[in-house]
């Protein structure tokens, strides 16, 4: 079942890719991707290494375009109904609406407070009370407030790996985005920290739309509402997670889920 944008009952999708081709120079990394993510849902992107799932994720906030020759060569990406490749789109404002968390937790070697406040300061917020509020709200959302409220001035690098990754999540949501992109957020963490992040991702879906990449199929089952399976730059199957895992429509999906290839 395709989570269709045209279904009358559902709200319009917050992120929508229409026939997107993406290439790095002459290498076509994504081919004709149609995908939409619904508001306040968790969407997982799975697939073997090099299938283009990270590229797809980075299409949504145009992070790929830092590399020369990397571009969307066909199709459109819509976020909140606006084509993000329109000439009048301010990239900084787009990225304020579409936050991102990376694979490796990478807090700046600054204080915890400064890390969370970074995005706000970038966007011109300097008033101390607003910053304080926003930092507290972000840390509460990332379930870090009680652990860290007494040591906000401590260097963020002294936190554990799981705390660092949750801090990065707090940093990404401090600017109050609508969409949160996560690129294999748990791949460098131990099982307990992974569970905490997974729990957090589901909580975050109350306020944000989460799209994440994972190489761990169980994680997709545990966390996501929808799953997209990519293979060699093509979207093979996209649908309700339970449906996709219990009753895959495509042969390729089935053999991937059974572990016949990876």
């Amino acid at each position, binding site marked *: 079942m395709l989570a269709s944008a045209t279904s009358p009952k559902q709200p319009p999708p917050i992120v929508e890719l229409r026939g997107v081709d993406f290439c790095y120079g002459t290498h076509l990394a994504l081919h004709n991707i149609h995908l939409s993510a619904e508001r306040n849902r968790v969407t997982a992107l799975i697939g073997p290494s090099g299938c283009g799932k990270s590229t797809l994720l980075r299409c949504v906030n145009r992070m790929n375009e830092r590399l020369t020759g990397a571009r969307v060569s066909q199709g459109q990406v819509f976020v909140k109904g606006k084509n993000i490749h329109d000439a009048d789109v301010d990239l900084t404002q787009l990225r304020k609406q579409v936050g*991102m968390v990376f694979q490796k937790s990478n807090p700046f070697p600054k204080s915890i407070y400064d890390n969370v406040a*970074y*995005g706000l300061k970038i966007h011109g917020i300097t008033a101390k009370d607003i910053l304080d509020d926003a930092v507290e709200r972000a840390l509460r959302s990332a379930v870090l407030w009680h652990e860290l409220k007494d040591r906000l001035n401590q260097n963020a690098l002294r936190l554990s790996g799981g705390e660092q990754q949750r801090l990065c999540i707090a940093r990404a949501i401090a600017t109050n985005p609508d969409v949160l992109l996560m690129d294999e957020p748990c791949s460098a963490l131990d099982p307990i920290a992974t569970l905490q992040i997974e729990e957090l991702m589901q909580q975050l879906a109350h306020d944000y739309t989460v799209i994440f990449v994972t190489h761990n199929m169980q994680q997709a089952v545990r966390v996501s509402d929808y799953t997209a399976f990519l293979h060699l730059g093509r979207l093979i199957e996209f649908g309700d997670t339970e449906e996709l895992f219990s009753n895959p429509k495509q042969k390729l999906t089935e053999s991937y889920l059974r572990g016949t290839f990876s």
Partner: protein
Amino acid sequence: MIPTPIHPKLDPANPFVGHQSRNQIRESFVRWILRIGTLIIVSVTAAIILHITVKGAPVALSREWPFVNVTFLTELPSTLHVIQDHQGHIIETDVNGADAIKMQLGANLRQEKTISYSGGGILGPIVGTAMLVIVSVGVALLLGVASAIYLSEYASHGKFIEMVRLAILNLAGVPSVVFGLFGLGAFVLTAPVFTSAPLDRAIFTLPLGFTTLSFQGWDTCVLSGGFTLAFVILPVIITASEQCLQAVPLEFRETSMALGATRWQTIWRAVLPFATPGILTSSILGIARAAGETAPIMFTAALAFKDKLPWQKDLVALPADASWFAHWEQSIQRFLAIFTESVQALPYHIYTLAARIPQNEYSERAQYGSVFVFLILVASLAATSIWMRRRLRAKYKW
């Protein structure tokens, strides 16, 4: 069938032939060659330092409190007068004391020698070198860090950038006397100044109404010398700064951009703060280089002799009832004069003492004293750099 005779070296019956095989001899020969080469370098360095310390330390240091020769470090260079009487007493004095002593000695005066530049102290050269270093490092850091940021963060990789990098590397190989001539042409003779009375030699003048922008040069002064030295140390600063910028993890940039920062915001907040310690540390090595160069300042800033410090310029005395504005104007003038005066500099002073005046024990004394002080200054700069790098490396880890 004739059995092929086995080569004696491959004789399997005797596997432990002993360590005196030809390979072993060659091995220890090579090891000793390398060891001797290293020893030669170390001993030459040690000999230089020892020689300078033995000859220079007695001049610059003293046995009693405050353990330094205060006169030598706090007075300007002057001409040394050495007066000898018939009993073999030797009196050293400056030009002011000479006459009185000669009067006192009367007929007892055997001979009087004057040795230029060798009396007094070396405060003038120390101050001059410090000012040249301040100006040059200031200019070189501004230009160097700016171009390092451009090369590392903005420029896309291509032929042009490769050419720029090659040019910077070549700049490092330019002989310093060429920089001196460049500075003479560019800064001493053609750099633009604001003046109401342009000189005839100005190659171009631009009337601006209230004043004229005249390309007549800055003359030999701290500014000309400092800018020239800046170009000497630019390659060092650019290369070091670029390496420090590259050492900041790429993820910092990505994270910052993903939060909606512009490129400049990213550089300012997520790259430069973490690169600055390294940039500053390596620029200290630039300071040591700038302090040591002689040729670039010969034509642009340095004087063999000057009896005033840069801020002791003679200005017209203000009348008693001068307004606060006149006072303010004069203090500005005094401040600017610091940079528009020629100065003495340590390396040039040493050159003068060693090669431009007749040699005797007195000039040699002044010479070794200056070299010793100079060596201490440069060595302490280098030591500071190493110490800072150690500390910051421990502090800024990610």
